[in-house]
């Protein structure tokens, strides 16, 4: 059936609603993105939207009046006559042009403003990124011209720490879960069923349940604050979902494959490495992306097990919000840096990510 596209009030309303949704979803991030490139002083002086092209009164030139001019008499400037008070207020000589006396009577200066299109990338800088990445001291000028000195947040090392946490914390659970899922799907061993029921039950258990005992154990073993503690913690918290997702996939692989491999004399391990792993790449990719984004964006686990010794991007950003709540140039560039990698992964591999979500994602 073909619908004729014609103008109708309903369609118009739908379009307007959709545009509003898109704006509400895009504008907040866009604002942070734009602000991260603005000069610190500008950020406090005007909203980020002033970077967008708009019409504004821009000072185009100054007129210096002769010294013998008496400001107490009506003053004629370029053919327009008015009293000092009126000049001080500013006079719109045409729709496009405003002239205004600058300062007190002795200044003898008149500024000419014209309405112009401004804001095509005015005064953008990469300095905020430089400042937020460094671990040393940074200085910047605020809106009132004061020079401010701050301790840098060393975001570059936070990014490295995040990578050091996320990559192993993604690979380790995948390896374990792939073995487990294969065993649950295609091997018979005692306790197979109750163990799998436990996996399903653990899917929704909030991780807060495990935090305190795990933290006590880690403290006893001297692991707190180390990357190993993060890898172990994320492996544990990620495994139920990993096993469940991979099981769902691996158990649907055709039985013939396993039978012919068995007849050819392949051991279960060989079957796993040479058949199961290559055939489950889509499921492995789905979970890998899911887990990577989860670990990268995690704040609670990092806050508790890593502490301040090796800050990852989320904890570095969170402590920046606490210490430098008004330093928007640092906050916005830090926030954008923390999103760069997940957004790239997300847009590059969206298909796999959505598949992982669909397969059940009530992660604890």
């Amino acid at each position, binding site marked *: 059936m073909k619908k004729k596209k014609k103008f109708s009030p309903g369609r118009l309303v739908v379009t307007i609603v959709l545009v509003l949704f898109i704006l509400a*979803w895009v504008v907040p991030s866009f604002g942070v993105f734009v602000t991260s490139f603005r000069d610190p002083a500008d950020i406090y002086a005007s909203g980020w939207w002033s970077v967008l092209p708009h019409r504004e009164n821009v000072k185009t030139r100054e007129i210096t009046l002769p010294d013998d001019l008496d400001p107490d008499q009506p003053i004629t400037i370029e053919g327009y006559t008015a009293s000092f008070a009126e000049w001080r207020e500013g006079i719109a000589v045409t729709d496009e042009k405003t002239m205004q006396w600058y300062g007190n009577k002795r200044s003898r200066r008149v500024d000419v403003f014209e309405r112009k299109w401004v804001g095509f990338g005015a005064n953008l800088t990469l300095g905020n990124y430089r400042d937020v990445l460094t671990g040393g001291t940074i200085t910047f000028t605020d809106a009132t011209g004061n020079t401010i000195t701050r301790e840098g947040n060393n975001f570059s090392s936070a990014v490295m720490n995040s990578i050091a946490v996320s990559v192993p914390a993604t690979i380790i659970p995948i390896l374990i879960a792939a073995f487990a899922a294969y065993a649950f799907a295609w091997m018979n061993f005692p306790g197979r069923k109750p163990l799998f029921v436990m996996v399903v039950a653990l899917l929704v258990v909030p991780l807060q*349940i495990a935090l305190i005992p795990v933290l006590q154990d880690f403290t006893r073993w001297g692991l707190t604050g180390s990357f190993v503690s993060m890898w172990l913690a994320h492996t544990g918290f990620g495994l139920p979902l990993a096993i469940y997702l991979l099981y769902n996939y691996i158990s649907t692989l055709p039985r013939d494959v396993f039978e012919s491999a068995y007849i050819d004399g392949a051991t279960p391990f060989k079957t796993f490495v040479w058949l199961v792993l290559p055939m489950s790449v889509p499921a492995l990719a789905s979970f890998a992306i899911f887990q990577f984004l989860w670990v990268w964006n995690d704040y609670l686990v990092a806050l508790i097990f890593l502490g301040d010794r090796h800050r990852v991007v*989320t904890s570095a950003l969170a402590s920046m919000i606490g210490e430098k709540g008004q330093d928007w140039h640092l*906050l916005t560039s830090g926030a954008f840096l923390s999103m760069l990698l997940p957004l790239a992964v997300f847009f590059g591999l969206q298909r796999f990510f959505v598949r992982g979500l669909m397969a059940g994602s009530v992660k604890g």
Partner: protein
Amino acid sequence: MLEAFKNNLLWMVFGTSTCVILGIMISVLVDKSKFEKFIKALIFMPMAISFVGAGVIWKFMYAYKGEGINITEIGLLNAIVVALGGEAQAWLLVPFWNNFFLIAIMVWLQTGYAMVIISSAIKSIPEAIMEAARVDGAEDITIFFRITIPSIMPTIITVTTTILIFSLKLFDIVRVMTGGNYGTNVIANEFYLRQFTYGNSGQASAIAIVLLVVITPVLVYNLREFRSRRTLK
């Protein structure tokens, strides 16, 4: 403590329902539109952003400069309010309502999830049913309430429970935005405070157990579903 529970109830009721309703709305409105993929990707995008990052984004939206003459608000929300003739507010300090400004952040983050799952459910409704309804002269609204919604009900339930659990455990947003102050505390933040600020593991564990108890029905439901599907032969 009671305040944390009350606030969590707000999160669970208003946060979850808003996410799900917006998710349904967007997936229906966008269905078969020319820009469907593009629009969905934009709404879905915050799923890739950390809560802390979203915290910065929305703290900037809510930014408030303070009182004084000739102050240009740099927070978009306040700028809009001022442009409409209203008065700038410190949004995160407004008693009671500040909870909703925080919930808005979760809605912003999670609606994409609801939308993606619900939208794929809508697409799997057989076209023949829709066609039959149209032939019988059903209006779009009738089709929506009589066919679309009932067909995707199981999906709606799944999405709702997922987001419910999610909002029950919610921690990062509150921690980063207000630290649980100004009457915005939630259970997960109370857990953190008891354990790490007051050093009382016993009370923190008790809170964790409460969380587990609240989640148990979902857990049992999941297990039943699992049994009925007999996936494990």
